[in-house]
């Protein structure tokens, strides 16, 4: 698994390096002021590609031996991705529902879906956090946070 991880990292970053170098080539390497906007990214792209190749080669010849070689549980990663999806959904709702309600929904989702707590706990956490954030950041500190149709 760890070898696959290394190979995957090397391939992804190598491809990214090629992309950066390719895009940098579309920008002027030299401008009338000296080095152009493509100068620095081109070398970054080349560096990324070469180091990724080194990572792949080092992995193939077994000279890198990461200690953390135990395989990652799919369930664990799945739980993290569910949490991340909840976060992204809450971010998507910020524009429509405002910060307070979006945070309350995110908190309720995490408490219910990931932690399997009772609905009462979820509701308490959701409202407690939403009220606490509104009191500290909006009322006390006067920060402007995304507001929903009801003004908070």
């Amino acid at each position, binding site marked *: 698994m760890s070898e696959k991880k290394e190979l995957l990292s090397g391939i992804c970053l190598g491809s990214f390096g090629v992309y950066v170098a390719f895009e940098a080539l579309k920008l002027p390497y030299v401008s009338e002021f000296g080095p152009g906007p493509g100068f620095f990214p081109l070398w970054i792209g080349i560096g990324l590609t070469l180091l990724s190749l080194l990572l792949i080669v080092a992995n193939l010849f077994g000279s890198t031996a990461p200690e953390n070689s135990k395989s990652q549980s799919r369930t664990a990663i799945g*739980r993290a991705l569910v949490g991340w999806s909840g*976060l992204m959904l809450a971010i998507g709702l910020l524009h429509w529902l405002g910060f307070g309600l979006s945070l309350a929904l995110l908190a309720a989702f995490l408490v219910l879906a990931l932690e399997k707590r009772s609905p009462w706990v979820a509701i308490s956490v959701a409202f407690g956090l939403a009220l606490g954030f509104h009191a500290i950041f909006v009322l006390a500190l006067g920060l402007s946070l995304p507001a929903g149709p009801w003004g908070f």
Partner: protein
Amino acid sequence: MGFSVALTPENLFWCFVGVFLGTVVGILPGLGPAATIAMLLPLTFKMDHTAAIIMLAGIYYGSKYGGSTTSILLNVPGESASVVTCLDGYQMARQGRAGPALGISAIASFVAGTVGVIGLMLIAPPVARFALRFGPPEYFALMALGLTMVVFLAGKSMIKGLLAMLVGLWLAGVGTDLFTAESRFTFGQMELLDGIDFVVVSIGIFAVAEVLVNMESRGGTELFKVPRGIRNLMPTLKDLKDCRFAFLNGSVIGFLIGVLPGAGSTIASFLSYGAEKAFSRYPEKFGTGVIEGVAAPEGANNSETGGALVPLLTLGIPGSNATAILLAALILWGIKPGPLLIQDNPGLFWGLVTSMYVGNVMLLVLNLPLVPLFAQILRVPYFVLYPGILGISIVGVYSVSNSLFDVWMLGLFGLLGYAMRKLDFPAAPLVLGMVLGDGLERALRQSLMMSEGRLSVLITRPLSAAMICVALAILIMPLVNKVRSFRVKAVEQDV
């Protein structure tokens, strides 16, 4: 003269207001001292100028004290200079040592902050003249030296550390080109024309990624253990003894870097951490919760404020956003900073310097009693703390420029940080690359412009040549050690 000005009841009051506001601003991620000083600037027009500059400077250096709190407790860096504090500070919190970490941070801030003020008072003019000898090649060499800190931040794989650093350098280049105003890597998004804010990246890959990692399993009722009893929540005498060199290292590096306009507290904190690790008896333990790993960068971060006021007050050159606004304030009040400031406005200059001593004492008195209180945050059940951290992250990122696009980016960088954790890529080199990328590119291109494309300009000037030599030595050191250990192994196998 300074004490007679700083110790008047009115100036003491405004000093307290400044350092208190600074502490609050420092704790909140995203809301930096520059924005707060700018917001309060109109209120100072009717104030006495000395009282006003004492208050505004209090916000500036007070914010440095608060910056470490969220880094240590929640792995949320409140500002760029606090990123390094996350590395060992958060690990200390996980081991039930949040109190000592917060305490040593306050003490290091006090010691180094005071050293910075002494430096400002005693050696300001000659140091400022020395700083003026820094041209683009010297700045490039300094940034390159900063980048070599990747050696100390890379962890187990140097290749992965360098790759993460290059991604950071690339991220720093996203947006409008510094010289030609051409857009680079913006993917057609208008919001990316201004570049990607550092706060978005650092909060994403540190705080959000940490929450995602912790979501992998259902936790207990408490996230971390917090020991009971005030004695267990404060640094011990042994902690203080262990940190004595870290205090010194942070104070000196922070002040010297602060004097250089544009270098900033982030590079000071990274360099100080790297120096502390390089000369430590147990460098391999750094990143696992070593108290010196908190004291050195926090000290550097605070000593830098004293250094940053040197070019501002003696030459009228601001080195950061916050000092630029302080400069604007002085000019708006009709005061001209520069070599004649001490002569023309002795009350203001010495009053400000002395108020910084008083302010540092106030900050220590204000922050140390808060340590046990802040440490209690970790007693909050994990299912309340996680959404709370995500909420603070969103507020921190949104308050930078009131942009929902930035909040989307936060989510994406959170996923990137999580993937990096899973693939054993260190996050700190990415942040290092991102912080230094802009300055590095600017200095390199300016150097090449002034030398008509000759790279030799970087090694023909003594200061830049010296720094590049040190940088190369730092880069080559691990390779030499590796070759040596291979030889030892080979000899052992032969035997």
